[in-house]
């Protein structure tokens, strides 16, 4: 009961949270690259949300009179298609804009699944130890024994090639990292006095796990979530490129690259732009993730 009151009291002090956020922002904003990455990422989110309004054409509309038209600044280009058209006359720019939706969607779903399941498994392993711990960690070792992309490919072969299955496969492959991180963090928290104290006053197991311990393990998990968001986008694009992810005509960036492959020596723009989109998005998230890590990791904080 006392513990409950205590947490409520903390909750009722918004100034504590605000101060924490301010401290976080102070560290985070020191890293100019990370701030730039954040703005870029927010920009992509806005583009994805308003894709229908921003894109000049429908992503799958085919302009039969304008096949493989180069970008507007090259001779033969047309201002109607700023970044040119692909082999069946679809506007590259519109497809890229709609592709942002796929990438963000993939990142969100994969991170949510692997974070949720990973945190639960990691909490169980770190909290109960013993047989449960060994069992969970051995399974994770098995998953980690396979190169990630290979395992994802094989999982998709079992489930059937589609975007949803690719996301499930990538989530499974990323799982072990969350489990390991959570387990390690939980184990180090378990030795601290506040956990012992909460246990002595009779806090129930589930509450102890999720309400008392878990919030103190969040820093490494947030960093991992940011980094695995970008890995998820890369892996999904790779699966799409291999024909095992989103299926044509979906304007997913990796799938677009797969369709563009046969034109690489004839039409540079159909190959170049989707890759630039993947690279810049992933780079922005990684730069942001680095900034997050520096701001959240007390070990690296400049004392």
């Amino acid at each position: 009961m006392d513990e409950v009151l205590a947490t409520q009291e903390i909750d009722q002090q918004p100034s504590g949270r605000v101060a924490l956020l301010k401290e976080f922002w102070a560290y985070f904003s020191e890293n100019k690259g990370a701030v730039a990455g954040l703005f870029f990422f927010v920009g992509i989110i806005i583009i994805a949300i308003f894709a229908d309004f921003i894109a000049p054409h429908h992503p799958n509309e085919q302009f039969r009179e304008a096949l493989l038209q180069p970008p507007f600044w090259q001779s033969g280009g047309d201002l109607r298609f700023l970044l040119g058209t692909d082999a069946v006359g679809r506007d590259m720019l519109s497809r890229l804009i709609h592709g942002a939706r796929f990438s963000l969607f993939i990142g969100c779903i994969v991170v949510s699944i692997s974070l949720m399941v990973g945190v639960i498994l990691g909490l169980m392993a770190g909290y109960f130890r013993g047989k449960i711990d060994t069992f969970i960690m051995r399974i994770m070792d098995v998953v980690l024994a396979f190169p990630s992309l290979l395992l994802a490919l094989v999982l998709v072969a079992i489930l059937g090639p589609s975007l949803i299955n690719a996301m499930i496969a990538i989530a499974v492959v990323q799982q072990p990292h969350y489990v390991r991180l959570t387990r390690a963090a939980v184990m180090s928290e378990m030795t601290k006095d506040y956990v012992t104290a909460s246990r002595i006053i009779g806090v129930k197991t589930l509450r102890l796990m999720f309400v008392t311990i878990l919030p103190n393990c969040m820093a490494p998990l947030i960093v991992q979530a940011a980094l695995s968001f970008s890995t998820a986008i890369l892996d999904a694009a790779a699966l799409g490129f291999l024909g095992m992810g989103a299926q044509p005509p979906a304007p997913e960036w990796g799938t677009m690259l797969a369709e563009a492959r046969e034109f690489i020596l004839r039409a540079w723009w159909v190959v170049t732009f989707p890759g630039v989109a993947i690279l810049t998005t992933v780079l922005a998230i990684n730069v942001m993730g680095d900034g997050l890590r520096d701001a959240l990791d007390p070990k690296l904080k400049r004392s």
Partner: protein
Amino acid sequence: MLSYILRKLGVIIPTFFGVTLVAFVFIRLLPGDPVLLMAGERGMSDERHAAMMAEFGYDKPILVQYGIYLKDLFSGDFGTSIITKQPVLKEFFTLFPATMELSVVAIFIAVAVGLPAGMIAATKRRSFFDHAVMTGALTGYSMPIFWWGLLLIIFFSGILGWTPVSGRISLLYYFEPVTGFMLIDSLLSGQAGAFRSALSHLILPSVVLATIPLAVIARQTRSAMLEVLSMDYVRTAKAKGLGHGRVIGMHALRNAMIPVITVIGLQVGVLFAGAILTETIFSWPGIGKWMVDSIFRRDYPSVQGGLLLIAAMVMIVNLVVDVLYGFINPQIRHTD
């Protein structure tokens, strides 16, 4: 040291059985009739189907099937390819040198460029060079390598016409494989121009495959170096008048190498994942392309065998790295 190795083996053996279980379950999880999947025949009569059921052991209880699968594995039977009718193990070791050659050259490039870049970046912290290396490393780390490969093909093969687009060596040359490494075999063959041809085929794929490990190694070297450089013994070494090069090269580098070596070891799994994409783009006849082709051809016995062999390979390399690591750093083998 022995107990350390035994402890590592104690972890790796159950993991290996877990891996065999995954490979075993893989075929049984595929949608469709297992006999049709394994035999790859169409329009099979009922009698033949029943005979095949018995031949593959699908009529037995699942645990017995797993036992038979394990027994076969330990007698070296990793299944037979549906397409080529060759034993999977033989196919694997025919193609393996190609992937090995690509990976070895890639790791060589990654270390040869990444290590000095990270070191110099650390010693010249916050300089232009440092920022350039870190930006480059982050870009490399974020690179969709399948796209990077296509870009290099556009530039070096398409525009400049310097390198061929696919394969390991020009069709003009033929010689029996000795080592399986085309670079060495082409030299041994003594044919004029063979080595040049092999090298020009190898260079782009190995650069593509090296990209991510290079970025990781450069970042890791820099941060390990920065940590070591801030330590007291380095200050002491400087204070007693040792030259800058000696402090960096002899004292700091040696300790900074420990985390770097682990990272290099960890790149083996990453390399295999990268090899899948790189080999597909450059039509490089190795394990990665073979796995992708097998999946598309529904050659499931090959996928099953390859999955197991690759995982075993990665596990063995990781074990060797772990043992080496314990050898270099006594702290490791006495903790955990």
